[in-house]
């Protein structure tokens, strides 16, 4: 379940990134993201999807882990990991 939380956070950050002009340019260097950019709706809506995905991941963590405080710590840890993954991925796109 934690893996699912992590994936949702990853997708949420991806949406938030693609909604930002500066990073959308970088995303153009990736073939996959280029297609994703074509499909994605206008920026505010993409942002909204990003935030909804983050909220969903939190909801999932809270409902799937019995002890709430531990669920929150899990969520914060995976959030950092997702953010780092996205940052490193987008940085790698700067080169290509």
């Amino acid at each position, binding site marked *: 379940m*934690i893996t699912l939380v992590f994936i949702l956070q990853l997708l949420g950050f991806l949406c938030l*990134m693609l909604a*930002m002009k*500066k*990073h959308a340019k*970088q995303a153009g260097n990736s073939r996959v993201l280029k297609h994703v950019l074509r499909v994605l709706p206008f920026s505010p809506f993409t942002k909204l999807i990003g935030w909804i995905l983050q909220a969903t991941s939190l909801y999932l963590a809270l409902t799937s882990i019995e*002890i709430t*405080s*531990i669920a929150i*710590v*899990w969520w*914060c*840890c*995976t959030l*950092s*990991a997702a*953010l*780092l993954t*996205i*940052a*490193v991925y*987008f*940085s*790698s796109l*700067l*080169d290509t």
Partner: protein
Amino acid sequence: MKATFRKSMIWLHTYLGVILGWLLFAIFFTGTLSYFTPEITRYLMPERASISQSQQSMIAHSFSYLSKHAGEAEQWRIALPSERSARWSVQWREGKQRQTVTFDDKFASVENETETKGGLFFRNFHYTLQLRGYGGRYIAGIAAMAMLLAIFTGIYTHRRFFKDFFTLRPQKLKKWTTDFHALAGILTIPFCIMICLSGIFIYAIMYLPYTANANFERGERGVNRQIIPSLPSLQLEEKVTGNDHSVNVPRSTPPFTPPPVPNYAHILEKIDDQWREPNPIARITVEGVGYKNSRIILERSKATTVSNRADRLVFETYTGKPLKGYDDETVPAQIRRILYGLHQANFAPIGMRWLLFGLGILGCALIATGNIIWVTQRKKSAKQNPFTLALVEKGNVAAIAGLILASVSFFIANKLIGHDVTGRAQLEVNTFFTVWALSAVHAFWRANAAIAWKEQFAFASALCFFTVAIELVLFRDRIINSMLNVDSVYLSFIPAFLISGVILYWAAKKISLRISSEQNVKENTETSAFVKKGQQ
């Protein structure tokens, strides 16, 4: 005073980092290793193999052992093993003397345990700086407060961090370092705030003694007494007789009669309904052994709570009747315990523990890059005092690469010092500090700091591979046994050292490439200047 508030914040951020950076790195690095304190201890003690016995059988054996060997003791304590520590021991107290016996998986008592500080060395260094009684905890507390300040001033310094956030420019090392510092800073904001704040809270009363002394009779102890609930003291009067308990043990004739075994089976049945996780008991204490009103306290494992105080249940020892137990903790005590628990992360399952470890390493990288940025920026400035610059530049090598070297040396010392050498635990510690001091000498001796960085990283990498080699050659039987028993805790140290070795080698290689490219640029400039002179 600087012209603007932002400039003042930048100044504060910079100098807090430069002045306390080395200390903070040492605290963060050893703290990060401390996430694996019991695992490190287990790795450093070959006799600590995993224990696969059920809790019930371990409790039965512990009580029968204590009854035989510690019948006259006032208190018994049984520490049951967790997957992390694999330490199963019994302890008893007679007057002021305490005795401890450790057992292995085959119910045999372990003789001649390896003398080592184990993971506790890193943990104690983390908050005492090996200066307990000499102000070490105060220094660590000041460092934590400075770190908090540095975090907040850092947030103010990098105003555009959400815009700049996802940019790591790998082609230019200086820019990459600045980008990475910002990225690590943002990623670790919640983690660093939690760690520093909880670290301060653990010793809050020690840091603010005046309030405690002014309002409580015995100062710090008085506060603890007031906020931490305890059980009423036992009035031991009447000894238990054969008919008072449900589990009878054959009794010998006077003068010595071993006390009966507590009614643990009945108690275990009762707690099965309340604590449903596997292996829920961490510790059992019996107070007033052999007396009618003796009580037994069962402490739950910390896997189910963020707090560092797990649930405790109290029963009558020989009837198994539940007693009132501890009162609920006061709110201040609960806050302190939760912060303490968050800091230690004893609740964290292995996946979360690795994530926290990763965040700790990122925190270390944040501090290290901050200090490196200061040096690279000051190198450009003609105003900078060359002595200060050299001091910080070479001090960075000793504080960062030197500490990594010293830590790996600690592990190697443990593996190579003979089992029977007296004072081997202290020898391990001495090795750590000697290597650290030598790394400082090396850093200051080398004219070019970049070469010192390269050499120390390369040496640390070689030591990591050497640790694996020692393990494979000298501890082959342990590896085979661990593979047969699927002892993942011990086995995971081998890949961990291999990966650390590869990362350190990669860092040394990068620095080496940079040194040679800088030399090429220098040579080219000199040649073109020489050619120009010739043409003139």
